[in-house]
């Protein structure tokens, strides 16, 4: 099977994305969830890079820069939320913050 380098890149990106998603769904620790989200974002970024390489376009790299910026601001907000949560509930369990259910 000859996928070529971009093809293998997409496969790797899909694998990373799936791993990240699994982490988000399975882990309860908020920090680990944030890390998993980073993995998913970077998987998406890798997919753009691979696509840009496949079509010989610079757009993929431009999009990756956007994702980088989004990831940075997401981490800033995410860590601030994690800190608040830790102060409120004295734990980092994501499920502990379910007081607003229903």
């Amino acid at each position, binding site marked *: 099977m000859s996928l070529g380098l971009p093809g293998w890149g997409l496969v790797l990106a899909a694998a990373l994305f799936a791993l990240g998603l699994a982490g988000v*769904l399975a882990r309860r620790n908020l920090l680990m969830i944030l890390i998993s989200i980073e993995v998913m974002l970077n998987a998406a970024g890798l997919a753009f890079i691979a696509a840009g390489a496949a079509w010989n376009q610079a757009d993929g790299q431009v999009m990756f820069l956007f994702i980088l910026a989004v990831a940075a601001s997401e981490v800033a907000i995410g860590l601030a939320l994690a800190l608040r949560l830790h102060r409120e509930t004295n734990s980092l369990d*994501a499920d502990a913050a379910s007081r*607003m259910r229903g």
Partner: protein
Amino acid sequence: MTGVPAIFGWLWLEPAIPFASALALLAVGRALGKRATAWLGTGAIAASSAVALRVAWSYAGTGGRGFTLPLWQWFAVAGFAPRVALYLDPLAVVMTLVVSFVSLLIHVYSTEFMAGSEGYARFFGYMNLFVASMLTLTLASNLLLLLLGWEGVGLCSYLLIGFWYPDEANGYAGRKAFIVTRVGDTALLLGLFLLFNRLGTLNLQLLMQRAAAHWAPGAAAAETAAFLLLGGAVGKSAQLPLQTWLPDAMAGPTPTSALIHAATMVTAGVYLIARTHALFALAPAAMSAVAGIGLATLLLAGCSALAQHDIKRILAYSTISQIGYMFLALGVGAWAAAIFHLMTHAFFKALLFLAAGVVIQAMHEEHDIFKMGGLRRTLPLAYWCFLFAGASLAGLPLVTAGFYSKDLILWSDYASPLGSTGLWIGALVGAFLTALYIFRLIFVVFYGPEREPPGHRPGPREQWPMVILAFLSMLAGFIDLPRALGGGDWLSRFLQPVLPTLAAGRVTELGELATDAIAGLVFFAGLYLIWLFRLQRPALTAALMAGAWPQRVQRFWLAGWGMDWLYEQALVRPVVAAARTGRNDPADAIFAGAGALTRGLNRGLSFWESGRVRRYAGWIAVGAIVLAALAVLG
């Protein structure tokens, strides 16, 4: 008015004294000692009786006219302005004398009988209230005041049946009496509405005049009004089909049973019909119904009395049966005979209950006659009282009051223009049953081996009223001795201005003496039969009761012909079932359903709002995958 004795102006004291005493006893009775309570409660009745006697004494010389004593105007609404007024005529004189004197004797008896019971003052308060209501009922000049007394005695009956209310069964018996008589009272009230609507007054004298003037005999309105009044009388006097409350009313203290549920209150229906006899005379169908109900009741109740074990229930069925006789007399137009029997019955039935009270006290609250026996020697007074009263009840010829009153009824059934041979034979069968059941009771309780030695013995305050009543049970008959026996039928003549005898009798084959003789023979036949079965050859009883059918009949009669069962199935159960259904508000189902739907939706939707971030993320992922799959595959 000239020629009116001044004492008639004090007539209002008769109900007022017991009423004031009842209020005092019920308000501050707890503070009084037992001695003061007994003096107040009994003294009020004694004073009332003294007034009644004094009034009767003066009345005897007035020649049977009616006197009205207006007191005040009750209220005035849209042309309806009933007065509170008392009316005195021979019927009222006889009734007040019977009521107040029997009440007095029973009050004296109660001072000792109730000595060991809780609520001594409460008991006398209720009893005095009852006497006040009963005297209001008998003296009322209009039907509205009569109804006030009527409901008053009903209330006291309820209160006294449930007197020992800590026992739940007594409370139920009281409620049953109240509710069953309420059925009759409703009919009575409707009758009052009809009479006022058609004749424009409730004054008894005016009403009777107008009824006779406006309505032809057999007119539909007269029949309807008479039937409605009859409904009230049937409820209060425990006749078919509303008789079921009286046997259960025996849950009350025994003096109550004697006074209210035997001697006075239950005869209020008889009094009502006698009082409104001019209306009934216009309603032949209602008259036949009165006679028919009377005959059916006296036979059915007589059979039931024969099967009971409880000494007081035997007497209760006997009361129902004897009131049946009074109805039978009313139904053939023998008004005076009914009142005569009412009077003698008040004496001997009150005595039977008082003596039964002595027996029950001596037997440590035991009611089952088959657990008693041989009390003849140990309770001689109770024995003799039972013998006298029983002989009077069953109609021992020539020497007892009951014989004369019952024979007057029997003779009227036979010879009255409304009578018939069939009614007469039915009444004779009833007399036979009476002899059977009352001597069965006497033989079982007082003869045979002694089963349990008596405990409590009656004191003088229990004994003297019984002795007096025993004399009255024997002698009261002589005030209406039939002419055929050389008497002067004084009572009938005294009542003649109010309660006329029917004009011409039927042509009959037998004379009055012959029917009297037959009634005497029937009494002796009953006495001999029960003597044979109970004392002489007890084995005969055992042989008879060994069969399946006699036992079945006995159970059926014990249960009062299954009437309670029938009402339970036909009326009580459906009402209770409807109430149970209604408790869940089926009519509200639509509104309640809308609420339940909203709440269900809420519960379903809030499942998705779990508040758990990871679950949201999971569903987002699922949604994304589904969308991607649709995009790729579609």
